[in-house]
């Protein structure tokens, strides 16, 4: 390698990130070299803290720095509804709507026959424990509208039958601002199936 050892190691570290090739990694490494020492230390601390300071919430399995997480500690939320999402990023997307006031459960994945990911490999037992403990009346299945998400929703709906809950699935259909002309047949069919009276 033509670079000094510390730079080579930094380039190697950056190139392990998704979407970062050796050229970009080199550019980032030289940018770090030009940064102020305090900023570099903050950057390094942020990297270490994200690994050491975060863990799963003991209630909803979201990633958190405090246990239970801030959402699970919020007493003003509706305890009777749990929204099941696949990833922490999906929870953030739901929170951005400011419409949902219940609690969440993060599965950290989805059942995938293609990838051989079964119910054992995602956080379903924790959800079942919550359903038997808490006064939940509705379970909203907000998994992705793809094969894996549908498989997970189907599995969960059948699994929780015994709890006597209302189980709902988020609607499928046209995106706001989209054009009907450009919608595909499957999306339009789903939109028709889920139509509502005005």
């Amino acid at each position, binding site marked *: 390698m033509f670079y000094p050892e510390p730079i080579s190691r930094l380039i190697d570290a950056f190139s392990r990130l998704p979407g970062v090739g050796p050229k970009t990694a080199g550019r980032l490494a030289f940018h770090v070299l030009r940064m102020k020492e305090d900023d570099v230390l903050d950057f390094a601390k942020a990297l270490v803290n994200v690994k050491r300071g975060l863990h799963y919430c003991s209630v909803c399995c979201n990633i958190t720095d405090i246990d239970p997480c801030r959402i699970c500690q919020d007493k003003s939320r509706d305890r009777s509804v749990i929204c099941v999402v696949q990833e922490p990023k999906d929870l953030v997307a739901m929170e951005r709507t400011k419409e949902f006031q219940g609690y969440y459960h993060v599965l950290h994945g989805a059942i995938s*026959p293609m990838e051989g990911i079964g119910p054992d490999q995602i956080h379903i037992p924790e959800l079942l424990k919550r359903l038997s403990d808490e006064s939940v009346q509705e379970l909203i299945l907000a998994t992705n509208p793809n094969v894996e998400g549908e498989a997970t929703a189907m599995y969960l709906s059948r699994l929780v039958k015994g709890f006597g809950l209302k189980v709902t699935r988020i609607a499928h259909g046209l995106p706001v601002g989209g054009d009907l002309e450009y919608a595909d047949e499957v999306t339009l069919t789903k939109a028709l199936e889920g139509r509502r009276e005005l």
Partner: protein
Amino acid sequence: MLYTVQGIVLRTTDYGEGNKILRLLTREAGKVGVMARGAKKVKSRFGAATQPFTCGEYVYFKSSGLGTLSSAEITYAHNGLHEDLMKSAYASYVAEMADRMLEDGEGSAALYDQLAAALAAIEDDKDAQIVVHIFEMQMLKMAGYAPILEECVSCGSRTGPFAFSAQLGGTLCPLCLHKDAQGIALPEGALKLLRLFTGVDIRRLGATTVKSETKAVLKQCMRAYMDAHIGIAWKARHFLDQMEKYPLS
């Protein structure tokens, strides 16, 4: 160059922020890899056409390596496979076989038709296990690993009752049975079905009623044979095993 093909989505892999890589089994060009740019985004016109098991007309640009999807028109979405977990699992196994047993450019129009028929049969409530075994046999035949079922694989005798030897690659007569300690006793009904599977066209498959004991033997034979000769750890088959272990109400 722009290609227009009839294809079935075997598998999708997320790539970058919003893209997907599709593995398609096409009627015209065998198995191909195509990049669908922006397919993960909400407003993408490729959203539904890039779901696994979807049959459609795909137009892609390709100079070398991976093609880039230009347009996609769904012919049949197989919604029924997406809405039933067990059907989805069986369909995944069929698609996984086509994906992992074929190299890029391999495949034929006949195999495309058999895959399309297998997915349709599973969706139409035909016995999914039987459909899967027929497709396994078709893939084995295409790969040149079809078992010998008309005579003893060791001595050529046609006198039964036969046992099935996965290791030796077919049926064993009573005199040669000692050559494979793991030989599976093969009832007449199971042997007839195995022979039938090698030649049957899935498009002509009607309603089938097979006894559960016979199905258990068929599963044992096909599984042992696939493991002995293909040697791939099938992810979808592992999933099916998990689902059988924890049956739902």
